C-alpha cells in the first residue's frame, strides 16, 4: 500500500490554511452566499446537542486524494491526554448519548481507547470513523477485539465496491486491504444486523454528486456479498465538500466552478433543515470547539458567545447557538442532503 498524495501542508500549499480556503470559497463574484440562499430556513441554529464529535487529530496511515482533514502520516496534530480528559468531563456534563470519534485515523491516536472506554462508562453509544486499512496494521493487531468488546459502531470509508475507483481516491492497494478488514469485521460479528454495527461511507470519486443512498446501498450489499461474501448493515452516501484536498483536486482539474454551481443548483431546503450541525458539537485535537468537522478544517470556530474550548463546555450555551456558515455548506444541502450519517432529506 502506498501513500502517493503528499499532504497540502507538506507541499506548502496555500490550501493548507483554513483561512485561505475560506478566502477562495467566499470570493465575491457569480456565486450566491449560502445565507442568502437559505432564505426562510436560516439563519441556522442548533436545536439540541445530541452528538459529541471528537476529532483526535490529523495523523493517518493514508493520504486520500479527497481528504477534507489534509490528514497523513506526517501530521503532528494529536490530542493530548489532558484534552481527552476535558472531553470526557464535557461529555458527562452534556448528557449526550452519542460520541463520534474521528481523525485522521482515530485508532492510531493515543487517546482513542481512553475516549472509547470512558464514553462507554458514561453510557454513550460510540462511533469509530474507521478507514479500514488501520485494522491490518501490525501495531493494531488487538484493535478489532477492542472495538468488538466495547460494541463500538464502525462507520468505515469505502468509496466504491471496485478497486479502480477506491484506489484512485485512497491510494494503491487500499481496496484489497479494505476488503480484508471487512472480512475480519464480519468474522468478529460486525455487520450481521446485531449490536456490532458496520456501516460504509460512499462518496463520489470525482466532481459529481452521490446517487440516492438506498440505490447505492443496494449495489454495495449485492456486490460485496457476491464478490467477497461480506455483509454490512448499511451505506451512508456523502457529498464531497469543496474544502482542503478535495478543493485542491477541484481547482487543479478545472472542476471548481462547475462543481460549486452544481451544489448550488441542487440546493434543497429540506436538506438545509436537516443539516447535522444543528444537533452536534465538534471538538478539535487541541480542544477548540466547532459547529462541525468541516468548519474545524476551515479554522472557523463556534461563535464566541458559546465558549470556544472544551474545558469551558456548557451545554446550555450551545443550544440555540448560531451556526457559522459559508459556501462549503452547499455540500450539505445539495440533493438529498449530506451528513456524517448520510442523506438528511
Amino acid at each position, binding site marked *: 500500500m502506498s501513500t502517493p498524495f503528499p499532504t497540502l501542508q507538506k507541499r506548502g500549499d496555500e490550501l493548507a490554511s483554513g483561512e485561505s480556503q475560506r478566502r477562495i470559497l467566499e470570493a465575491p463574484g457569480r456565486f450566491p452566499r449560502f445565507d442568502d440562499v437559505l432564505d426562510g430556513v436560516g439563519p441556522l441554529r442548533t436545536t439540541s446537542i445530541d452528538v459529541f464529535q471528537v476529532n483526535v487529530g490529523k495523523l493517518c496511515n493514508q493520504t486520500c486524494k479527497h481528504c477534507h482533514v489534509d490528514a497523513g502520516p506526517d501530521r503532528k496534530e494529536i490530542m493530548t491526554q489532558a484534552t481527552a480528559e476535558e472531553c470526557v468531563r464535557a461529555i458527562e456534563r452534556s448528557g449526550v448519548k452519542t460520541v463520534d470519534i474521528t481523525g485522521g485515523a482515530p485508532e492510531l491516536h493515543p487517546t482513542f481507547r481512553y475516549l472509547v472506554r470512558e464514553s462507554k462508562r458514561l453510557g454513550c453509544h460510540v462511533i469509530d470513523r474507521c478507514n479500514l486499512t488501520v485494522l491490518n496494521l501490525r501495531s493494531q493487531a488487538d484493535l478489532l477485539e477492542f472495538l468488538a468488546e466495547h460494541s463500538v459502531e464502525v462507520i468505515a470509508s469505502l468509496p*466504491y465496491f471496485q478497486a*479502480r475507483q477506491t484506489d484512485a481516491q485512497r491510494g494503491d492497494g487500499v481496496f484489497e486491504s479494505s476488503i480484508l478488514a471487512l472480512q475480519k469485521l464480519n468474522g468478529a460479528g460486525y455487520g450481521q444486523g446485531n449490536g456490532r454495527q458496520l456501516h460504509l461511507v460512499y462518496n463520489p470519486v470525482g466532481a*459529481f*454528486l452521490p446517487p440516492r443512498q438506498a*440505490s447505492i446501498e443496494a449495489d454495495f450489499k449485492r456486490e460485496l456479498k457476491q464478490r467477497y461474501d461480506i455483509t454490512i448493515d448499511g451505506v451512508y452516501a456523502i457529498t464531497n465538500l469543496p474544502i482542503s484536498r478535495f478543493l485542491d483536486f477541484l481547482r487543479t482539474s478545472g472542476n471548481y466552478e462547475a462543481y460549486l454551481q452544481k451544489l448550488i443548483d441542487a440546493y434543497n431546503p429540506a436538506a438545509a433543515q436537516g443539516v447535522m450541525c444543528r444537533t452536534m458539537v465538534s471538538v478539535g485535537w487541541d480542544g477548540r470547539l466547532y459547529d462541525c468537522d468541516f468548519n474545524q478544517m476551515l479554522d472557523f470556530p463556534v461563535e464566541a458567545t458559546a465558549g470556544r474550548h472544551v474545558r469551558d463546555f456548557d451545554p446550555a450555551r450551545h443550544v440555540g447557538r448560531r451556526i457559522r456558515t459559508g459556501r462549503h455548506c452547499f455540500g450539505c444541502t445539495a440533493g438529498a442532503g449530506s451528513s456524517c450519517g448520510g442523506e438528511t432529506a
Partner: protein
Amino acid sequence: MAGTYYDPADLPRFSEMSEGAPELWTKFMEYYGAVFEEGALSEREKALIALAVASAVQCPYCIDAYTQASLEKGSNLEQMTEAIHVATAIRGGASLVHGVQMKNIAEKLSM
C-alpha cells in the same frame, strides 16, 4: 460569438429556448421531467439509455449531461462504456441491415 458551433457555456443556457414559445417549452420540460422519473425503469437505467442515445445522435451537450447523470446515479465506467457499445452496435447493425435493401434493389435491377 463563440469560435465554434459547440460551446460548453451554452448548455446552461438551454432554458433560453423558452423565449419565443414558452408554452411549448413548458410542455416539453414537463414531459422531459416525467420521462426521467423512476418508473418501470430505474432512474439509473434511464440515464444509461440517455447516454447511449446521446452518443448515437452525437450531441455533446447530452453526452456531458448524461455522463454526469450516470455517475450520479451510481453507474461505473464499465457500465457506461457498455451502454456506448450498445449504441455503437445498433448504429453499425442498422447500417448493415440496410444492406438488404441494397441487395433487393440490386437484384431487381440485375439480370
